[in-house]
Every structure is written in C-alpha cells, then in structure tokens.
C-alpha cells in the first residue's frame, strides 16, 4: 500500500529534535508513506493557547489551510503537542460559528482556505491503523529479538478521548504493538502514563526536569535496554535533558532513549547516521551494540 500525506513538523522538531525528523523522513517512505512538506514552517499555536485561545486556534487553522494547498486529505503531525492543539482548534472551528467566521475571514486575507475535512494523523496511528502492523512486520529485515524496551506514548495524543485521540487514554497499546512488530519486547510498567513535564519548561523548569528525571529513574529500574518515545517534547526531556534531569532527582541516569521511528529504522536496517542516532544524547550505544551483535 502506498499513501501520500502532507507533513507538519511544528517548532520543536524543526528547531532542535532533528533525529526525529531525520528518522521520520527516512523510515516512512520505506513503509509506503510519501511525505509532502508544507509551504511554510509555522507554530501550531500551543504556547499561544495560554496567552490567547483565539490566536492559537487561528495558527492551527492556518496549518490546516497550508495543508489544504497540497491538495492531500491527510496531514501527518509527528508532535503530540501540535497534534492536540490542531485537534482542539478543529473542534472549536467546527462548533463555534463566530470563531469559524472570523478565522475563515482572516485566512482569506492571506489567500488561504480552511479545509475542515483534512484528517490529522500521528506517526503512531498512521503506522498502526493505516500502514498496518502486518506491513510494518513484513518490512522488518533485521528483527530486534532480545531487545527489552519500555514505551512512553506521551499525554496529548491519548487524552482526552472525546476529542478523538490516537489511542486509548488509560491503556494505550498501539505503540507497544509497533515495537513488538520489530520482534523486540515491550514491557508494561507502573509509570507508563506519567508525563515528561515538558510544558513546565516554560514556567517551572526545575519541576519539569524532576518530573522527567523521576520517570527515567523508574524506567531505569526496570532493567530495560531503552525507552522509546514518539514526541519531540518527550524526546527533549528524556534524551537531550537526561543528565540535567538526573541532577534534579539525585540519580545517575544512563538510560538509552530513542524515537519509535529510529527503532523501526534499525529494524529496517537503515544506516544509523541516516536515523540521526548520533544526535541522541542518552547512551544509546549500549542498545546499538546489542542490535548489531
């Protein structure tokens, strides 16, 4: 099966979480998903939500209008936060006539057209529901047998259910199933639904880091080979800031953290450099040597 989707990266991926972008660009086409970039880079409106709800909705609607320019009915949003912000905006535009009228008018000023029928996907449901576990499993050329992993789905793609989310709010399974499709093991653990804390980096950075540190410490205690994430904010907190997070919880953290698409890339035997694995700041070498052994 081949499918062509527009892709919106948001800020965090484009500005610093390059490994996620590289691995998505590398792996998805190999699984039959062709990616088409939007004309412009734009914020989804997430940090603006706290300042002005309407302006946040406008930014998200503008993202959908940019997606509309590609003529494609599906938009991939690999960031959990962007996925939530855009989903909320879609709902506000749909439900509130006044908001809709204003936003449609503002977009018109820029020659853009709002399209309510664009379906928003995340990497997880695109691979699980659209590409399918069977196809993912079939594409695996280097089974990751023997790897024991913990998954972190993140908050905003699973809550709140009324909005229509990527997976179940209290018992998300899709990411684990994708991990298992590579022949690796995905363990269940008590802290699975704990938040990475990234939003608090804006107002209470120390607390944000201790939330991240607490979770990494707990996962480290499970004696797994690594923690798999699929959101740039979670990647930032658990991987890029792992050392700092460790100091806030008084623990020496050395847990390999990698993106789901990096893991899939390893199973598809993509060169590590193309997956951006040199950019992970956590000690992924341990895990990589186990994979290549």
């Amino acid at each position, binding site marked *: 099966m081949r499918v062509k989707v527009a892709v919106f990266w948001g800020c965090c991926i484009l500005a610093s979480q390059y490994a996620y972008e590289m691995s998505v660009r590398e792996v998805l086409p190999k699984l039959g998903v062709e990616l088409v970039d939007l004309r412009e880079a734009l914020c989804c409106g997430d940090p603006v939500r706290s300042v002005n709800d309407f302006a946040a909705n406008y930014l998200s609607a503008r993202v959908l209008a940019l997606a509309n320019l590609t003529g494609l009915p599906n938009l991939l949003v690999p960031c959990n936060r962007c996925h939530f912000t855009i989903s909320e905006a879609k709902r506000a535009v749909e439900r509130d006539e006044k908001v809709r009228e204003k936003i449609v008018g503002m977009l018109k000023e820029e020659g853009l057209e709002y399209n309510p029928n664009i379906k928003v996907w995340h990497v997880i449901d695109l691979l699980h529901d659209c590409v399918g576990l069977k196809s993912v499993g079939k594409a695996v050329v280097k089974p990751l047998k023997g790897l024991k992993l913990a998954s972190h789905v993140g908050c905003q793609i699973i809550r709140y259910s009324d909005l229509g989310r990527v997976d179940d709010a209290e018992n998300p399974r899709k990411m684990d199933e994708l991990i298992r499709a590579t022949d690796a093991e995905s363990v269940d653990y008590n802290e699975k639904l704990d938040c990475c804390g990234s939003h608090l980096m804006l107002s209470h950075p120390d607390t944000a880091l201790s939330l991240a540190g607490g979770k990494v410490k707990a996962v480290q205690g499970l004696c797994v080979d690594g923690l798999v994430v699929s959101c740039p904010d979670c990647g930032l907190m658990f991987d890029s800031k792992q050392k700092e997070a460790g100091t806030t919880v008084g623990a020496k953290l050395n847990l390999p953290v990698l993106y789901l698409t990096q893991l899939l890339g390893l199973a598809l035997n993509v060169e590590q450099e193309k997956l951006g694995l040199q950019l*992970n700041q956590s000690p992924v070498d341990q895990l990589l040597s186990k994979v290549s052994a």
Partner: protein
Amino acid sequence: MGLTDLMSMAKPNLESREKILRKLRGRELINCFQCIKCTSGCTALKLLELKPHEIEKLVNFGFVDELAASDIIWTCVTCLKCVQRCPQKASPYHVIVALRNLAVEREAKVPEAFMKAVSQILETGLAEAYQKVTTRKMEACDRESLKLPKIPAPKEGFQAVFLKALEER
C-alpha cells in the same frame, strides 16, 4: 501560595466568573461536584501543589480575580488527565487556560517564556529559534549539515493577521 489564604479576604466577583464561563463556551463547570478525581491524578499536584478541584470551586464561587493574579494557574503541566477523568465534563484544564488568558488580558504576571514565544512567532513563524546541536562525540550540527531541507518562514501578510488574531478576546 495556598489558595485558601488568598481568598480569605476576598469578595466574589460574579462578572469575572461570567467572563470565564463565556471563554469556556459552555457551562459544564458549574456541574463540578468536587469528586476530586482531577486532583488525585494531577501531575502538578505532587511537586507544585496544584489542586484542580479547588480551582473549579473557586471559579464557581466567583474568586476569579484572585486566581487570575495567582501563580498557581501557571503550574499546570497540560497532561490532560483531569479532562479525561472528570465525570462532569467540567475540564479543569480548560478552566486553567481561560484563567491564563484572563491573566494576560489583565497584564498580570505571566511567565516570560509564553510572551517570548508569541514574539518569536511574530518574527519567524516558529516559537523556537533553530538550534545548533552536537552529536555524542561533540561534533556540531545544524539542519544544513544534516541535509535537512530548508522550510521557509510564513509569507509577508502573516504577521499583520496574527497580530489581529492576538487582539481577539
């Protein structure tokens, strides 16, 4: 700051309460019956003592001005567990967002990073600046050296329209 201290001398302001209900585009908030499911699962409770059920009750009582001026509304980590688990659809998360918006309108103390993100978006379209990163072997990289495509900033008209959007209440 404990919220009980902050309301002890205050008088309810029902006009401000109405403002929050308008922002919420629904009146489910008044159905909150203090079951405390939100607080018992709150990520920010453990470290920052955010108690969403108290926020709900205070808004319902009309102590909105106090809340909008308080630091407590900026401790929410937006994990959305409260929205998911509320049996009354009284979504503390959305109430907190409405209070934050009101705080901005009133020029109360707002964490700087939020306003900075807004001005960054005005300037470049993105809330964050492109960063140079390093590999584990300490080699510096950027989008160009990683062969990632350049994605252009929004076209000229964007800034004016976004500014207009920011004026909406």
